């Protein structure tokens, strides 16, 4: 259990080191104050996972350092039951001249494990890291991935009552990451509390029971992970000069084509989230504004979703959907596509195009690559992996019965 009550932290910024000395001697302040955290209060119960969201500079790392005792607060109180292990950095204290075994001792002790605990868990740590015989080799022979695996393995076996993790989860390949997630889940089921700071909105939604949003040192939102992620996005959107839905063709000319028809605005919004960060399975609405400079009797509006590698994931157009579109010169219309976003979590772009007939090879009016950027974070309904949700139905065709003797 962790409880923070009114934690406040200000840093004094001096232009020169001598200013600090002058201030103590002359008793006149010569510093600027930067308030990193103000009146931070929250509670994390046994077995609970709290996510902390915030932009860079919002105070997340400072808060973690306060919770760990690396920094001391100006005001406020911290109540802990049991040991707390923080993971601000993997492999603190690692010496690359020493072997993996020796470094388990070093790092383990810095993380708060006693000699007895290290002895008891050494086998498990080596096992989890999958380093095998390499554990007796000096760290200088390891790849960076191996060092990360060892570091994470030691950390995950520190077995505190409460774990603080600062964006250090993305180590190793998919197999190792899954092991780590399983171990963390086992930790939580054992009653351990977890505080998780990350920019990975999907991880926040998947792992946390509750989440808070920090902005400029204050808690500006707190609640379920979904609500917190939405609040966070709203925060970013409000503060950006250019919202994620870009206006095509205004200042920077995106796309190409003869522009007889023009996409002037594109927007993707989830019904639940109200933003372009949606959950898998959420109903989304893609809204495109089209200006016509000529009379066009029959045109096609197309949409193409690409993943972060640029692979085409899903594309269709109004011709395939058998939806006729036409326009008169000087008119402006808005067309909407609604569908459930049954894609796996990740970053995506949406490309929109206007052309004649069923592909753009004849007459391409306007093709806007990557008009909209959006993200799928979190899954509504059963978990799935890969690219898309195929929604299988599962039934037992022949019930279990003992096999016939040969």
């Amino acid at each position: 259990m962790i409880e923070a009550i009114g934690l406040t932290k200000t840093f004094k910024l001096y232009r020169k080191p001598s200013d600090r000395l002058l201030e103590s001697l002359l008793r006149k302040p010569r510093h600027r104050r930067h308030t990193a955290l103000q009146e931070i209060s929250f509670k994390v119960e046994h077995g609970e996972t709290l996510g902390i969201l915030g932009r860079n500079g919002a105070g997340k790392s400072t808060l973690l350092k306060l919770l760990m005792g690396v920094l001391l607060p100006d005001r406020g109180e911290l109540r802990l039951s049991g040991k707390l292990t923080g993971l601000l950095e993997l492999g603190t204290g690692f010496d690359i001249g020493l072997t993996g075994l020796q470094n388990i001792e070093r790092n383990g002790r810095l993380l708060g494990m006693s000699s007895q605990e290290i002895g008891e868990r050494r086998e498990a740590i080596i096992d989890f890291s999958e380093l095998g015989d390499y554990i007796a080799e000096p760290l200088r022979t390891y790849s960076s991935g191996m060092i990360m695996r060892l570091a994470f393995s030691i950390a995950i076996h520190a077995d505190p009552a409460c774990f603080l993790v600062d964006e250090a989860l993305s180590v190793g390949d998919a197999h190792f990451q899954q092991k780590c997630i399983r171990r963390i889940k086992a930790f939580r089921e054992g009653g351990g509390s977890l505080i998780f700071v990350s920019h990975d909105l999907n991880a926040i939604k998947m792992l946390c029971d509750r989440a808070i949003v920090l902005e400029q040192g204050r808690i500006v939102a707190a609640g379920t992970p979904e609500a917190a992620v939405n609040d966070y996005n709203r925060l970013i959107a409000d503060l950006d000069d250019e919202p994620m839905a870009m206006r095509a063709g205004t200042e920077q000319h995106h796309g190409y084509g003869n522009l007889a028809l023009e996409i002037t605005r594109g927007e993707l919004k989830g019904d639940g989230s109200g933003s372009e960060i949606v959950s898998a399975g959420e109903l989304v609405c893609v809204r495109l504004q089209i200006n016509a400079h000529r009379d066009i009797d029959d045109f096609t509006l197309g949409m193409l979703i690409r993943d972060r590698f640029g692979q085409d994931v899903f594309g269709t157009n109004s011709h395939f959907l058998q939806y006729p579109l036409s326009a008169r010169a000087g008119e402006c219309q808005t067309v909407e596509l609604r569908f459930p976003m049954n894609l796996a979590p990740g970053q995506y772009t949406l490309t929109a195009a206007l052309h004649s007939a069923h592909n753009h090879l004849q007459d391409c009016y306007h093709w806007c690559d990557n008009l909209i950027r959006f993200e799928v974070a979190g899954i509504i309904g059963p978990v799935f992996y890969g690219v898309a949700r195929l929604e299988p139905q599962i039934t037992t065709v022949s019930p279990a019965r003992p096999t016939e003797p040969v």
Partner: protein
Amino acid sequence: MNLALILQFTRQDLVDRYAGSVLGGLWTFIQPLVNMLVFILVFSQIMGARLPEISGSFSYSVYLIAGLLGWIAFASTLTRTTTAFIDKAHLITKVRLALWGLPLSIVLSDSIVFLISLGFFLGFLLLIEHPISLHYLWIPLIFALQQCFAYALGMVLAILGVFLRDIRELVTVVLQLWFWLTPIVYVFSIIPESLRPWLQFNPMFPVIDAYHSVVLLNANPKPQGLVLLAAITALLFALGRWLFIRLERDIRDLI
């Protein structure tokens, strides 16, 4: 105060730094041994130095080493304690470490090196049939006082040194001067009469003088200087503690 962690840092100082080398921890013994051999051979055999008061071809070497072993430990502890926080900054900013007891590993590792050197020295003394008496039991006590002084002074400087990084360079320079202001390489009798009273302001003088009393004269050390040093150490300790309580938050912010 995590004892296991202190012991680990001490082992890092003495053993781990030689990781990957063939001789490994043996190097901790080799350096003091070679040091001693150099002093003995160069000064007694090659330079033929003699003490005016005491006879014997090794008398100067014995005089020199008696003072030098203690001084080496003192200088090392003081210098390293002064930079203890800065040197361990990469750990202090990432994991929770108790700052007050952190330099204890420095005192411990320097003490172990002193004990090794002392062992070799005693062996040498037995070899040249230099009289060793029960007075030698004073040596650990004198050493303990000296190390407490180094630690207390070092802590004050370490705290201030986080804010004024110049202090690290200052300590190196001051120690150089301090060495020559203490009769380690030369004998007390060559100091002119007019300057002798000033020697009582040198806190290390009673310590070195005590080593000389025990090893060369087989006598008890003079108590006044040592008692005064103990008082100074206690004051420095209190000062360090007061500074630490007021400044720990700023130290952690700045480091």
